[in-house]
């Protein structure tokens, strides 16, 4: 029986973790993700979970401790945001390349500077090439659901890669929304026990984790890592299918909203997709064929599926909540355009950087984007393909 609740996104992730009851949770606080370990620490103090909670001295340490715990054979995770994620940069790569399953709950916040505590995706987008699987949420329900699915994906024998579950700082992490929770037993049964084949605390088989790989072996290690990321696509869908059967909430690589017959499409990640859906609802009433592709899985990048979903649109705006300072646009823009090119799509495409440092996105803003797409489709001229939205000047 599902339970109806009202929770903030941080609470929702913490509740999911209480139901999962992981073995080890090292954490260091940073806004806006602090509440996840804070709520969880209260569960530990009240004896509601068996987890070893380790208050560490930095994010470099929290990720390193999670890695050590995973290598030892434990189910481990940590949580962070922004500068905290940046500070765990080095161990992020170690988790992925040593093929250690673990979860990082990211609450997206702008990287400094200027120093800012509000939402954009510059932190996790900066870590996009670290080898982590990345799942993004539009709202609190999706943050909860992604957390419940994350360990199953991470620990799958064909994957064995760490997973980042991301949600938008303050917008979903602190806003309280209605949410439907699974029963504790349902989550427990769904996630199951973690039984690694090899682990450091196994006295029957001594193991070396992270041995030096000379030039003769490094590239083979990376090739195998790439294969694991390829395998992750099927595993993500398998886990989502099973989760859908359990919860009635269905997930894939992305959500299509009125995309089937859309002439003008927006591609974006995160909470602003909710705003865009309102815009689309208004436009559809006026007969405008507007649609949305809201990406859930950024790593592995579902290029073929995105191109297939966009094959009939006339113009598309790819919205990035992070700039890559390539003078071309953001990371999502680059990868979606690359996917479209490889499928020989003819649609005009522009890349819009928006919402940096928590800059608000309104229904009217997105209406302007669709109006611009209509102009582009009519003239066949995309104009500047690297633009900013919602900035003065």
């Amino acid at each position, binding site marked *: 029986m599902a339970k109806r609740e009202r929770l903030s996104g941080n609470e929702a992730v913490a509740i999911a973790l209480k139901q999962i009851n992981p073995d080890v949770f090292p954490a260091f606080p940073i806004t806006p993700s602090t509440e996840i370990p804070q709520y969880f620490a209260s569960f530990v103090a009240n004896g509601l979970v068996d987890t070893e909670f380790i208050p560490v001295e930095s994010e470099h340490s929290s990720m390193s401790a999670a890695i050590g715990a995973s290598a030892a054979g434990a189910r481990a995770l940590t949580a962070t945001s922004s500068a905290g994620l940046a500070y765990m940069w080095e161990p992020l790569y170690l988790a992925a*390349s*040593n*093929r*250690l399953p673990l979860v990082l709950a990211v609450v997206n916040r702008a990287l400094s500077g200027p120093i800012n505590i509000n939402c954009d995706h510059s932190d996790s987008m900066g870590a996009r090439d670290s080898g982590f699987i990345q799942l993004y949420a539009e709202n609190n329900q999706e943050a909860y659901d992604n957390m419940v699915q994350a360990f199953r994906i991470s620990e799958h024998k064909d994957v*064995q890669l760490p997973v980042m579950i991301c949600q938008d700082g303050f917008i979903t992490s602190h806003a309280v929304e209605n949410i439907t929770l699974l029963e504790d037993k349902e989550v427990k049964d769904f996630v199951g026990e973690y039984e690694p*084949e*090899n682990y450091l605390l196994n006295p029957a*088989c*001594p*193991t*070396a*984790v*992270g*041995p030096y*790989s000379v030039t*003769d*072996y490094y*590239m*083979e*290690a990376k*090739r*195998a890592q790439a*294969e694991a990321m390829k395998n992750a696509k099927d595993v993500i869908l398998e886990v989502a299918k099973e989760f859908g059967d359990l919860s009635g909430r269905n997930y894939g690589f992305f959500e299509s909203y009125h995309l089937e017959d859309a002439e003008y499409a927006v591609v974006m990640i995160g909470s602003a997709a909710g705003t865009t859906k309102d815009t689309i609802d208004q436009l559809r009433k006026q007969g405008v064929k507007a649609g949305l592709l809201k990406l859930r899985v950024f790593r592995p990048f579902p290029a073929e599926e995105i191109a297939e979903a966009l094959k009939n649109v006339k113009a598309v705006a790819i919205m990035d909540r992070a700039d890559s300072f390539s003078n071309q646009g953001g990371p999502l823009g680059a990868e979606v355009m690359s996917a479209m090119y490889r499928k020989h799509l003819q649609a005009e495409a522009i890349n819009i950087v928006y919402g940096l440092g928590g800059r608000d996105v309104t229904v009217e803003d997105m209406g302007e984007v669709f109006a611009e797409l209509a102009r582009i489709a009519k003239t066949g001229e995309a104009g500047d393909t690297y633009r900013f939205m919602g900035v003065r000047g």
Partner: protein
Amino acid sequence: MAVDLNKLHLRAPWQDLTTGMMIHAGGTSVEFHTGEWTAVKPSIDQDKCKKCGRCHMVCPDSAIVVRVVDNARMEGPGCGKTALDRMYQVDTDHCKGCGICAYNCPFDAIEMEGM
């Protein structure tokens, strides 16, 4: 499950190597011939060597090994397990050629030689 070390070699395709290059077996550093990294090796002049053992103590890789030599030919009092029973040799499989032994030898008994 322990890994078969014989299957981890330079001709093994990526599919046959272990996940994350982990090694599921104990004491495998002996099998790892770090001596391949160097182009110079110490050579101990056994006539000059006074068996003081300093090279053995300063070697960062435990690559100066002590061999107990046959003392059957020695006679007289004090010819049991004495300093004379020992002989210092270089484990070339694990010596990285740093030269610390040669630098520290008080009797100039160690020369670094090119290979």
